[in-house]
């Protein structure tokens, strides 16, 4: 007797034939779509990397629990996580690994140098890449077809920041005339200080001094003393988390109370940890930064979910959530996990994409940059972070000038 009898052959054959003949979506259900999430979760940027991961995971869980990618027969998204270790080499190495594991697209990067290197590495394989935060204007000016940035770049953020500051001051009857700029000496800080030095005098502000400090800095007393002696109406700090917290606390201890603290792309001014740990120092601090749309019920729900899980909420979370949603939307429209088709679909994204939770206008990509993206102004009010500008997204009125 042979080991395989006629009936077995028939049964197996029929089953195999049925499988081959079955519509594509039935088979697709088994295979998940792999998406690379690249974040720096070790090194200097570890805190931001974790926040980014939280956002991406929230979006992936939501998509998977609500039936997966419908146009791919309910295929689930499988996250392939990569640690960019806060440097561009490690970012590139992780892109290569993700490519080897067969991801259809990558989301993340956080810091500009990581984003610049990682997008280039991905471009070799025509691998779609959605930049989550990296604000350097160079990211979307290289003509890379695979690279998309959903959030705003440096030029848009700083331009809006100056614009909104002028509006804010005008609306309050121009109480602020003199300014001191405090900035860290890297990309954000020095670029911003240069721009402010050019733009603010044109708008009727007098810059009393520009003070640079390194990151990390361990003592801000000298800077605070300098601010005290100059007694400006407005302090414009752009620093990373620790340095700004230190400055705000030192100013509070030395009772330096300008009419306003107007931060731009600040690491702390719109960070709940700062608000929670140092509520007095944080009170009334304004920031022009990425932030979720507080009027969007979906954003509120995602924030509640993250809060309930005991995790920190910062702009990285909604940005990464939105970027993953953008990718999912593009895959749905492409109807395939083919990279070329996903890139085409991403480029063709329109205002019909509503699954994001950012306070942006209609999504439209030009050279990979979302034209609808922009920053908002936030202010710490009553131990919470409120949006005060633009009015279409605001959930609070600005408190300015802060002191009588």
């Amino acid at each position, binding site marked *: 007797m042979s080991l395989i009898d006629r009936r077995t052959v028939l049964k197996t054959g029929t089953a195999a034939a049925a499988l081959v003949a079955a519509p594509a979506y039935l088979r697709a259900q088994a295979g998940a779509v792999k998406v690379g999430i690249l974040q720096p*979760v*070790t090194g200097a940027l*570890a805190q931001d*990397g974790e926040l980014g991961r939280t956002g991406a995971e929230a979006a992936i869980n939501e998509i998977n629990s609500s039936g997966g990618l419908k146009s791919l027969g309910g295929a689930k998204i499988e996250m392939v*996580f990569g*640690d960019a270790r806060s*440097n*561009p*080499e490690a970012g*590139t*190495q992780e892109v*290569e*690994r993700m*490519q*080897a594991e067969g991801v259809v697209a990558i989301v993340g990067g956080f810091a*500009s*140098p990581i984003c*610049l*290197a990682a997008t*280039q*590495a991905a*471009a*070799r394989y025509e691998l779609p890449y959605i930049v989550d935060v990296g604000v*350097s*204007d*160079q990211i979307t000016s*290289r*003509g*890379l077809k695979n690279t998309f940035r959903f959030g705003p770049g440096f030029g848009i953020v700083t331009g809006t920041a100056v614009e909104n500051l002028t509006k804010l001051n005008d609306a309050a009857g121009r109480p602020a005339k003199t300014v001191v700029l405090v900035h860290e*000496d*890297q*990309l*954000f*800080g*020095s*670029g911003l200080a*240069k721009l402010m030095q050019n733009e603010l005098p044109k708008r009727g502000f007098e810059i009393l001094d520009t003070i640079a400090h390194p990151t990390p800095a361990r003592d801000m007393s000298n800077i605070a003393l300098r601010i005290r002696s100059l007694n400006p109406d407005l302090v414009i700090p752009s620093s990373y988390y620790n340095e700004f917290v230190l400055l705000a606390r030192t100013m509070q201890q030395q009772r330096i109370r300008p009419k306003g603290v107007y931060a731009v792309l600040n690491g702390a001014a719109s960070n709940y940890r700062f608000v929670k740990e140092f509520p007095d120092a944080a009170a009334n601090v304004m920031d022009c930064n990425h932030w979720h749309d507080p009027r969007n019920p979906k954003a509120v729900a995602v924030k509640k979910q993250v809060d309930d899980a005991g995790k920190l909420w910062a702009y990285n979370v909604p940005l990464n959530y939105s970027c993953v949603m953008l990718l999912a939307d593009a895959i749905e429209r492409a109807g395939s996990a083919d990279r070329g088709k996903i890139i085409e679909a991403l480029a063709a994204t329109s205002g019909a994409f509503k699954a994001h939770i950012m306070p942006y206008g209609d999504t439209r990509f030009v050279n990979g940059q979302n034209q609808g993206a922009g920053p908002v102004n936030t202010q710490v009010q009553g131990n919470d972070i409120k949006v005060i500008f633009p009015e279409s997204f605001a959930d609070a009125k600005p408190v300015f000038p802060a002191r009588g």
Partner: protein
Amino acid sequence: MTARDLLPIAVAVALTALVPLFVTTNTVLNFLVLVLIVALAAQGWNILGGFGGQFSFGHAAFFGTGAYATAILQTRFGVNAWAGFALGVAAGALAGWIIGYLSFRSGLRGSYFALVTLAFAEVFRILANAAEVTGGAAGMLIKLDMRPANFQFASRAVFFWVALALVAAALVLTRGIECSRFGARLVAIRENEEAAQALGVDTLRTKLAAITLSAGVTAASGCLYAQYFLFVDAQIAYGTWISVEALLAPIIGGAGTAFGPLIGALSLHALGEIAKLFAGRVPGIDLALFGCLLVAAVAFAPEGILGLARRTRPRLKPAAG
């Protein structure tokens, strides 16, 4: 230097050059290119630190000068990438000569020399971060245009071979120094500078030649970095990471030997990658493991991997003749 001296180099390089024929995954090739870039920087350090005993903590100054020079020449002055590479190496060597002249003339040695080089690298970092010509803190981007004429290759394998060729050249250079009178003078300075001087060695000249060569080789590594990642900023170019990599690799591999830096760079980075594989999803565990292994390596193999191999290898009978 005889053909016998070059044989191990030729064999090692030829075998390494075959790797891309068998390993086609870019993950591995990309990893190896990074290892070669670090190895080249370390080979530069080894000439001054390994042979000359002048421990520099600031080889980033040369790495960064090479990287920035090639990037600036290409993007601001439209110089061809290959010419930019050569000029970058020259710029790095010049920076080495200047720093060497300033510090050796003042008789700085040991930890004082180490601190001065560290300070130079920091000063360069701050200047590059503020200056207009280096793109300030935003850094510099070399335009992506993958043509061999632009020193950019679509295939990672080709870049691997270019990097390997440079590492091979540095190996030959190091072996040449080892076998030459210049090398002997350098070692004499390392062992006892006063004694070398008493024997008639022009210590300043020898040390200047060593730092210039050393800086040139490390600058070549910086140029390679810029051509490979096409992006440089002050933190990458002049940051302490590369100074540390450049001195760690020879110390782990075996300072003052031709192959030490290469073996050191390869084992350090391989260790890092392997640790990452075992660490799984817990971030940072691999770095902790890496640190423990590093401590163990330094504790049990103070002469580096090559020194350890030499110590543990059973003594062969001396060859006749």
